[in-house]
């Protein structure tokens, strides 16, 4: 019985670059989507600080508002808002990935699962805007 040497190729193991997320637009979009969570947390903290300032009295709240009017805070909040919108849109677009088959048992177009979320979002935002503007 001949003895065979098991095939043991000398393979090359490629390593991923630390900048893999710059390789392709899809990966960059993913990285931006994931990093948007940081700005969601930032807005949550900002809202808590706002509530704390409001409960501390008019002087504190005026100081808080004055702080928000600084150029740095305006730029930061504009960037944060952009990431927050990205987070919301990408989140709703992921809904069809989990929901469609589970509810209907059959594949349906992605839009049927995602678009109602956008309607609820816009509707809720509209009502909040009316409230802030003092219309209701």
């Amino acid at each position, binding site marked *: 019985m001949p003895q065979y040497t098991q095939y043991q*190729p000398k393979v*090359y*193991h490629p390593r*991923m670059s630390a900048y893999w997320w710059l390789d392709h637009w899809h*990966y960059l979009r993913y990285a931006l989507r*994931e990093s948007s969570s940081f700005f969601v947390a930032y807005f949550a903290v900002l809202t808590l600080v706002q509530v704390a300032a409001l409960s501390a009295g008019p002087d504190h709240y005026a100081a808080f508002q004055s702080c928000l009017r600084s150029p740095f805070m305006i730029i930061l909040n504009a960037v944060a808002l952009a990431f927050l919108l990205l987070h919301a849109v990408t989140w709703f677009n992921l809904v069809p990935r989990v929901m469609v*088959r589970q509810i209907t048992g059959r*594949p349906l177009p992605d839009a049927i699962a995602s678009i109602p979320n956008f309607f609820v979002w816009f509707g809720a935002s509209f009502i909040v805007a009316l409230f802030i503007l003092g219309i209701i």
Partner: protein
Amino acid sequence: MADTIIMEVARFHPEHDTEPSYASFEVPLRGDWMVLDALNYIKDQLDGSLAFRWSCRMGICGSCGMMVNNIPQLTCETLLVNYAPGPVRVGPLAHFPIVKDLVVDLEDFLAKLQKVKPWIVRKDDFKPEREFIQTPAQLDKFKQFSLCINCTLCYAACPVYGLDPNFLGPAAIALGHRYNLDSRDQAADDRHDVISQHEGIWDCTVVGECTTVCPKHVDPSLAIQQYKLTATADWFKSFLMPRGNK
């Protein structure tokens, strides 16, 4: 349109090279040629030592997956003319060990595939006397996931697999899910132990590129997210009713 196009093809000889490099070849640019046809032209006419896998030439066997301009593609259904005026760069599938030139070692994938038992398992003594009847609705539940041809483009597109080789991966999970959804199968519990571990579905961060590159529209990302929902529901059931299955 030019008559030729430059192809930069990855070369790696395991006994001579320490890392892959790219060699340029000038090949005819024909409207009906796929990238695979150009590779075959190189092997037949320019350099017979070039190594790559291919078989059916019609997108069924899943052998000819390669990185074409850094995107995983089946080269038998990727038109060369789409990359004119060139150059077009062809490399081995990303994230897999390279054996030679464009040939990668798929042992890791095959071992993971076996773990999810991608076949029908019966645990009773059911001996059918005729075909197992399935309704169209029962077939629809898993049909999409059954179209996988094991080409592993999804692994090459998945940065999670690239960063964590322990990740079970898109195709293996999709195929495990396919058999879980099959009304003839009874091994969902066995697969659950493999698929619902951390290196299974929970490693996936929904990059979604597996779905984008899949040549058969299997949508492995959908399978993974569906299984996350199933696993979560099962966990809640076992938490609320610890003796429910006994």
